[in-house]
C-alpha cells in the first residue's frame, strides 16, 4: 500500500496556506472596526431589526469589508512586500498566492452584497457594493499610488459602514447617517497622517505618495491641524440630532478639545525635536485618534439606551429636526 501522505509531504508550496492566513487576508483588525461602527449604525437607527437579521447584517457588512481587504492585498502585494509594516501579510510573505486573494476577495464581495440584500434591503446592499468598489478600485488601484490626497478621498470607504448599518435598519439615508459618515471621513486624514509622520520611511521606500513623502512633514502637520479643526464641528453637531444627546455632547466636547490640542502640539513641533524623542507626540496623537473614534461611537450607542433617553428628558435636551 502506498503512503500517499508521505508522497505529498514534500510538495508543500505557496498554495498551502493555513486557515489563519485566509483570515489575515480579510484584515481582521479593520473588520473589527467595521463591525463596531456598523453595529452602532444599526443600534442607533430608529427602526429595530429582528436580532437574527441584525446579526446577519453585521456579518455580511464585515464580510464585505474583509473582501475589499483581500482585493487590496492582491493588488498591493508589490508595495506590501517593501513596507516593514505590511511585509508579513499573507500574499507578500508567500503564504497565499495572489490569485487566491483575488478569488477570495471577488467571491466574498458578491456573496456579502447578495446576502445583505436578502437579509435587509437593496439600498444597504448597493451601498455595501459601492463601499467595496470604492476601497478596492477607487482607493487601492487608483488614488493610493497617484495622489497625496489618497487618504482623504479613500477615507470614504472606511466611513460607509455605519451608514450601511443605518440603512440596513431604516431603508433610507438620513442626516444622522451622513453625520456618522462624515465623522469617520474627516477623522481619517489626521489619523493616517499622524501614522505617516512616524512611518514615513516605509511609504517612501514603497513610493506611495503620502503627504509626508510628497509635501514633507511640515505640510503634513499643517494638514493635520486643518482637518482636526474641520472635524470638531462635524462631531459636535451630531449631538443635536436624534442619535446624540447630553452624554454624547460631553464626551465629544472633551475628545475634540484633546484632539485639537494634540493637533496644535504637532503643528508647533519642529522636526529636530520630533526626531529627538522618536516621534513620541505623534505616536500619542495616533493613539488618541483611535480612542477618539471608538469613544464617539460608543457614546452614540450609549445614547440609544433607555437610560440616556431618561437623562435627555430630565435635562430637557431636544434633538433638532433637520429635515
Amino acid at each position, binding site marked *: 500500500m502506498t*503512503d500517499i*501522505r*508521505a508522497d*505529498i*509531504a514534500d*510538495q*508543500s508550496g505557496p498554495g*498551502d*496556506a*493555513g*486557515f*489563519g492566513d*485566509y483570515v489575515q487576508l480579510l484584515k481582521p483588525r479593520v473588520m473589527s472596526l467595521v463591525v463596531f461602527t456598523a453595529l452602532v449604525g444599526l443600534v442607533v437607527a430608529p427602526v429595530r431589526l*429582528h*436580532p*437574527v*437579521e441584525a*446579526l*446577519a447584517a453585521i*456579518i455580511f457588512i464585515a464580510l464585505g469589508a474583509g473582501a475589499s481587504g483581500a482585493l487590496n492585498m492582491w493588488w498591493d502585494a508589490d508595495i506590501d512586500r517593501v513596507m516593514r509594516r505590511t511585509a508579513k501579510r499573507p500574499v507578500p510573505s508567500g503564504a497565499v498566492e495572489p490569485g487566491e486573494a483575488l478569488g477570495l476577495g471577488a467571491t466574498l464581495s458578491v456573496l456579502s452584497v447578495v446576502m445583505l440584500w*436578502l*437579509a435587509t434591503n437593496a439600498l444597504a446592499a448597493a451601498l455595501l457594493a459601492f463601499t467595496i468598489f470604492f476601497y478596492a478600485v477607487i482607493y487601492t488601484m487608483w488614488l493610493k499610488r497617484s495622489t497625496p490626497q489618497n487618504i482623504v478621498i479613500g477615507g470614504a470607504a472606511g466611513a460607509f459602514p455605519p451608514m450601511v448599518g443605518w440603512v440596513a435598519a431604516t431603508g433610507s439615508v438620513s442626516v444622522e447617517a451622513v453625520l456618522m459618515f462624515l465623522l469617520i471621513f474627516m477623522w481619517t486624514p489626521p489619523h493616517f497622517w499622524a501614522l505617516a509622520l512616524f512611518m514615513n520611511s516605509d511609504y517612501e521606500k514603497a513610493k506611495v505618495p503620502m503627504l509626508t513623502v510628497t509635501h514633507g512633514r511640515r505640510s503634513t502637520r499643517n494638514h493635520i491641524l486643518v482637518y482636526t479643526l474641520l472635524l470638531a464641528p462635524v462631531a459636535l453637531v451630531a449631538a443635536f440630532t436624534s442619535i446624540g444627546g447630553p452624554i454624547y455632547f460631553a464626551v465629544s466636547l472633551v475628545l475634540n478639545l484633546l484632539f485639537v490640542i494634540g493637533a496644535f502640539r504637532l503643528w508647533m513641533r519642529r522636526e529636530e525635536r520630533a526626531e529627538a524623542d522618536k516621534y513620541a507626540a505623534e505616536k500619542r496623537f495616533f493613539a488618541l485618534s483611535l480612542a477618539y473614534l471608538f469613544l464617539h461611537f460608543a457614546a452614540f450607542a450609549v445614547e440609544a439606551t433607555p437610560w440616556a433617553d431618561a437623562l435627555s428628558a430630565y435635562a430637557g435636551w431636544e434633538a433638532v429636526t433637520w429635515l
Partner: protein
Amino acid sequence: MALTREHDLHKRRQGRNIGVLVVLLAFVALVFGLTIAKMTTGDQLQGFDHTYRIEMDPGARTGEAGQ
C-alpha cells in the same frame, strides 16, 4: 512507530478543512435563522399572495372593510 509520516502540511490542511467546515456550518445556521426570522416577522410576505387577504386590509381590521 507510526505507519504514516506526519508533515506540517497535513496539520495545516487539516486546520484549513476544519475551518472551512465551521464556516460553512455557521453560514447554513445563519441562513436557516434568517429564514425563520423573516417568516415570523413577515407581514409583508402576504403581499405577494395575489388575492384579497383580510389581514392586509387595515380598514377590515377596524371593522370598516375596504371593499
